[in-house]
């Protein structure tokens, strides 16, 4: 606020002084120049009338010559004054209009209104820095869940794009460099309602400074950052960033899962991806030899992930000299049939087109499919604008870094239990177990989005349950899955995991006893989540579900029942 006012005053200094000077000279002139009254006597205008005359003359209203008709000398002075005052006004108005049109002034105004709207937020919100592919997916999903978001990006066209996106909640957005702490501060970094900061810009250095600023100012707040290099990852982890997402590593893990455990891969996909793959898309013939084209960041991460899962690999790369230690490798881009047949495309089960060039990648999978129609194709999409061609490329997997990061982060935001579940599944269970689980998921949600959410049994999240515990009632896990409208019907959801004092119980039975402090991860339709909130928060609904008794359970009636 102050900045704008000072700027305005400073710029208007000269026009205002000119206006004062012109007015006072004009007034003085009229007072000094002798006039003539209606009897022909010499008459001197006083200051009051002179100021009156100059005021309406300067504003070009012009009531005429008062109080008596002017002498030629007065008219001459009036003529001069008219031009002088009109020019002074034009100059003043012109300067202020020019100031209003200046981009800097507009920026200051926008910054000010942004700061004010962030300050007014009285609900928990996330601060998202970077509104690229990842940022826009995350913001859209969060807004769909009625979570407030504040957006920063240094490109103005992205901020314009945000305004065009027609989100259902107002999203305060500012075009500014998120690496600057004062910008972050204006965006609510120290706001008590800010529950998380997401550093999603495409520059590692910027993400790093956002994460550091956030951790320094508010050590307990969740910070999520994307990264593209191992050094940044290590750096981010060193000061306790809550989640660091490397798109290449994440996708490499995802893909290697598809190669060695197709059903686990589907479970992972269903939990993470709002538009999950159909059940029928399971690839039975994923075991065998894979070809990786391009040994860059993605290729290396993939090689590492595949290597751990004992898959036979051939690497095709333009520069064969830099990775001498690889057992099978072919030099070339992979777009020509010669290179591909040398790499053994005829008997490979899958090919990964992972070069940083989109046209090359598409060419690789098209050539490969021509030579071996049954081959699995994985293609990396580098530029979001190529969506249309990629969508029609009929590739089995499209790896788009932005979406991967977004899905990974959204899963973390839904509940920190999701990554724990995935890790536990990968460690302790096999593909047959995953097959049963995916069938169960499919029967619950069908083609709809599989949502997941979590409850912690405590005063804050499940007040009704805590009250029932205080009454000495025993509660079973099954109460969550009964429909509050009709307790004989079940909700479309089931428990994935129960964590009690660090012990993890995967797919707990519905008859398990609950205890305060339990953390339950649940998956199912989003509708079921809303119904479940009823049970968890309303004691009457809980009583109905437990006993079928729909009576009022106010404190008074409970006391009356006891006596």
């Amino acid at each position, binding site marked *: 606020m102050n900045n704008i006012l000072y700027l305005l005053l400073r710029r208007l200094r000269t026009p205002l002084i000119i206006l*004062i000077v012109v007015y006072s000279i004009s007034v003085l002139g009229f007072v000094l120049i002798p006039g003539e009254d209606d009897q022909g006597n010499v008459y001197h205008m006083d*200051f009051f009338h002179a100021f009156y005359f100059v005021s309406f003359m300067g504003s070009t209203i012009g009531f005429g010559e008062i109080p008596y008709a002017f002498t030629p000398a007065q008219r001459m002075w009036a003529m001069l004054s008219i031009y002088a005052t009109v020019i002074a006004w034009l100059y003043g108005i012109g300067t202020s209009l020019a100031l209003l049109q200046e981009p800097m002034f507009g920026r200051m105004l926008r910054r000010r209104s942004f700061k004010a709207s962030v300050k007014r937020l009285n609900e928990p919100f996330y601060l998202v820095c970077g509104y690229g592919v990842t940022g826009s997916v995350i913001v859209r999903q969060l807004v769909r869940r009625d979570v407030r978001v504040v957006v920063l990006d240094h490109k103005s066209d992205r901020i314009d794009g945000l305004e065009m996106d027609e989100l259902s909640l107002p999203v305060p957005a500012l075009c500014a460099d998120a690496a600057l702490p004062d910008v972050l501060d204006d965006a609510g970094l120290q706001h008590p309602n800010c529950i998380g900061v997401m550093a999603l810009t495409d520059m590692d250095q910027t993400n790093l400074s956002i994460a550091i600023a956030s951790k320094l100012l508010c050590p307990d707040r969740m910070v999520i950052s994307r990264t593209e290099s191992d050094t940044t990852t290590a750096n981010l982890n060193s000061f306790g960033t809550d989640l660091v997402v490397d798109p290449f590593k994440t996708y490499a893990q995802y893909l290697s899962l598809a190669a060695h455990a197709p059903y686990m891969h589907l479970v992972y996909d269903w939990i993470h991806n709002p538009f999950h793959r159909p059940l029928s898309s399971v690839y039975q013939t994923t075991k065998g030899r894979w070809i990786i084209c391009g040994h860059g960041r993605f290729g290396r991460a993939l090689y590492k992930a595949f290597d751990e899962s004992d898959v036979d690999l051939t690497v095709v790369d333009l520069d064969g000299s830099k990775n001498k230690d690889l057992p099978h490798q072919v030099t070339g881009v992979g777009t020509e049939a010669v290179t591909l047949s040398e790499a053994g495309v005829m008997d490979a089960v899958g090919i990964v087109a992972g070069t940083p060039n989109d046209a090359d990648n598409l060419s690789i999978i098209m050539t490969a499919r021509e030579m071996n129609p049954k081959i699995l194709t994985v293609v990396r999409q580098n530029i979001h604008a190529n969506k249309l061609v990629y969508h029609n490329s009929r590739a089995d997997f499209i790896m788009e870094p932005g979406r991967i990061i977004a899905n990974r982060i959204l899963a973390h935001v839904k509940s920190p239990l999701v990554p724990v579940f995935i890790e536990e599944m990968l460690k302790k269970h096999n593909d047959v177990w995953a097959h049963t689980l995916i069938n169960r998921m499919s029967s619950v949600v069908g083609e709809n989005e599989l949502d997941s959410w979590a409850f912690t049994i405590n005063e804050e999240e499940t007040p009704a349950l805590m009250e029932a515990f205080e009454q000495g009632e025993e509660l079973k896990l099954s109460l969550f899955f009964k429909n509050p409208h009709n307790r004989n019907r079940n909700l479309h959801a089931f428990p994935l995991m129960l964590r009690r004092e660090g012990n993890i119980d995967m797919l707990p039975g519905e008859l398990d006893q609950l205890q305060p402090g339990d953390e339950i991860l649940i998956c199912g339709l989003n509708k079921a989540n809303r119904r479940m909130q009823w049970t968890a928060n309303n004691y009457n609904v809980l009583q109905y579900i437990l006993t079928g008794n729909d009576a009022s359970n106010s404190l008074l009636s409970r006391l009356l029942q006891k006596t």
Partner: protein
Amino acid sequence: MNKDKVIFAFFIVLALTLNFGFFLGDIDNPEHHNVFEFFAAITVSLICTVLKFGDRTHLGALMLATSLVADLQLVIAACIWGYAVQVSGVGMDASNMSSVVSLSGGALLANIISVILLVVESAMLRR
């Protein structure tokens, strides 16, 4: 020598001296108080105010405040003068004159503070 500073100090001191010149004399005697001097005092005081615009320092804010006080006092005095001569029908009598002069005395105080602040500011400059 800084030209801006010269202009700035010139107007502030001029506002004080004009104000002082007008204030001198018997408080209720219209003969002792020149209307042109009063007009000049108002004009210079307004210019001073505009010159002080846009200074973000603490001292700058104080100076702007004193200037606004002087303006307020002088403009009210001018209104009384205009009312006495043009509207009341009594003309410039002793009681009206004394209220005009006492208001300008208030403005004089504000202008003195303004000059003191100017001196303080230049004393703080270590050059």
